[in-house]
């Protein structure tokens, strides 16, 4: 393996760790809080080694209390710090929902910018790892619907590091969703030191003129795989990784849909009220007359994320995405 200077080959979870270490070094106001993030290094080891390096005042193992430590982090942010909270699994965030909805997301608005909450909430999300109940939720739409918070969801190690650093430097609250299923699925070259990726910008992963496939987080590899299968059938797809879920990258969606006129949106979450519907709204508002076929959504179902015996049927697969691609092509 050839190792480039200043570049490390990292998994997503290692890239998250690297981003946190970089920012703990870079800024004294950055502190980490959460359950088992200190001595244990986090249940996914995202904070491994950070307690030893930065001490327990900056890498705090907290009592088991999502509302309590998220609320405390809001107080710390008001007091001039930049807390990065780890919610062990997105499915455990609901006790903190009130704190995020009624305080973090609206403190700036209700005080005309006098008090602000530069808080980052990290949470592994999604199904596909045979996890116990409630450990597999992908309820990003509960937060994209919430005014006053940005929602970021990287799909690759490089993006994970650059976006997490951008989230920590952002003056407003950011929910940072980490695709649990992709945590250790592959490696990528990640530059050492600090770099940022602009929040609100998607990325084109494959170029093709026939169809636009839009995905984010853990669904990006599924979309890529489907696009590769389609290619074998002579269908060339633009594959877009949204990277940020709020605010959406309107331009990258419009530019591609106006070129292809056919769209497939891949969403792990339940169908109704999901982000895919907001993407449809963007297409409606920007590219209505360019469409050659009704857009297709490949999503989870309107059922609680099932016990893992059913999860292969719940999750969108490359085969389902390919079917949707063919459907929009044959319309």
């Amino acid at each position, binding site marked *: 393996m050839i190792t480039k200077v200043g570049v490390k080959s990292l998994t997503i979870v290692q890239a998250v760790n690297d981003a946190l270490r970089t920012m703990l070094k870079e800024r004294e106001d950055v*502190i980490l809080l959460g359950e088992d993030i200190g001595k244990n290094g986090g249940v996914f080891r995202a904070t491994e080694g950070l307690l030893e390096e930065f001490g327990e*005042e900056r890498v*705090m193992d*907290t*009592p088991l*209390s999502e*509302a*309590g*430590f*998220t*609320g*405390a*982090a*809001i*107080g*710390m*942010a*008001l*007091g*001039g*710090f930049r*807390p990065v909270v780890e919610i062990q699994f997105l499915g455990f965030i609901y*006790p903190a929902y*009130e*704190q995020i909805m*009624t*305080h973090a997301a*609206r403190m*700036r*608005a*209700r*005080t*005309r*910018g*006098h*008090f*602000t909450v530069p808080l980052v909430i990290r949470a592994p999300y999604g199904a596909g790892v045979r996890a116990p109940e409630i450990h597999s939720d992908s309820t990003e739409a509960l937060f994209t619907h919430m*005014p*006053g918070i*940005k929602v970021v969801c990287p799909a690759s190690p490089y993006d994970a590091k650059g976006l997490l650093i951008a989230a920590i430097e952002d*003056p*407003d609250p950011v929910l940072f969703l980490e695709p649990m299923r992709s945590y250790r699925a592959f490696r990528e070259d990640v530059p050492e030191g600090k770099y940022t990726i602009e929040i*609100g910008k998607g990325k084109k992963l494959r170029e093709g003129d026939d169809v636009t496939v839009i995905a984010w987080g853990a669904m990006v590899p599924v979309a890529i795989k489907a696009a590769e299968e389609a290619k074998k059938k002579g269908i060339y797809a633009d594959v877009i990784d949204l990277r940020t879920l*709020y*605010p*959406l990258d*309107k331009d990258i969606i419009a530019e591609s849909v106006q070129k292809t006129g056919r769209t497939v949106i891949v969403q792990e979450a339940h169908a109704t009220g999901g982000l895919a519907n907001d993407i449809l709204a963007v297409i409606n508002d920007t590219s209505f007359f360019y469409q050659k076929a009704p857009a297709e959504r490949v999503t989870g179902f309107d059922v609680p994320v099932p016990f893992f015996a059913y999860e292969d049927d719940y999750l969108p697969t490359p085969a389902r995405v390919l079917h949707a691609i063919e459907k929009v092509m044959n319309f």
Partner: protein
Amino acid sequence: MERDFPIVQVLSEEGTIAQPEYREQITKELTMTMYRHLIRTRMVDRKCVSLQRQGRIGTYVPYEGQEACQVGSALALNDGDWMFPTYRDHGAMMTFGRSLTQTLLYWKGRTEGCVPPEGKKIVPPSVPIATQLPHAAGAACAEKWKGTKNAVIVYFGDGATSEGDFHEGLNFASVFNAPVVFFNQNNQYAISVPITRQMKTKTIAQKALAYDIPGLRIDGNDVFAVYFKTTEALERARNGGGPTLIEAVTWRYGAHTTSDDPSRYRDQEESKKRRETTDPIKRVERLMQREGWWDEEWVNQVQEEVNAEIEQAVVEMESYPKANVSDMFDFVFAQPTWTIAEQKEAYLQWKRGMER
């Protein structure tokens, strides 16, 4: 537990000093300062109820009867301290430095009422019950890490103790020894639900045992007990002694809000009786009379001054520039997202068309 957590009183209902060790500290000057603030908070509260009745402000949350809790605790703070109030604590906020005009603007639905005066860390009132307790714990940790001597006070009612955030806030603060005073105003009703339905425990102070922090029960209608005990708790916090839970036992004379009718759930005769016996202002007046500090002329002058201040604030509130629609969009993020920018532009354009 009631024996373990007796109600601490410094000034009796008759206006005598119940704890001689505080005698020297209860000077004429301090008493007059307390009295002035008590009168001011009460007069403001009554004015607000009347403004609401006239439709000049929105739904209002009265605190009459709880003035000693709010004045005594706010006067115990240092300038650099944090205050995390609820929606019933504008008496404390005003005593700590929020202007009357801002108070009125808040109740008129204006965000300007949430901006504290320069240099004062008065966070806007928390509306969801008990959610501000974890914030206070976090802000206290922040002060500790910065190495300041600033402390934090956070207010909440008896009903708040049933919420998970009450426990999570006290637990977090106690684990990290945060410099915060949890100031409970036990007015014995959460809207209509009496304290006996809220908890089995006879006191709120005893809940401190669960966090291994000092807990004490004080007469919340005794401004001196509130002032001295809050000062002691704040000093302990500043000096590394960690959090304290104070239960100030009090009574709200009136409704939960101006939309509430307390006669539906309790006998208002009790309030009438308490106005004569345990009232926080009456007992200071009794003290002043006993000590020979009562000066009718000065009292009239205080009332006139407060009246003038209130009238001035009402004029300022009512002549305040109209709410600017753009403000609704402009303060959500440091930089508006494209969705907000587009929505603002489209709405303002439509509105301009409608106004033409």
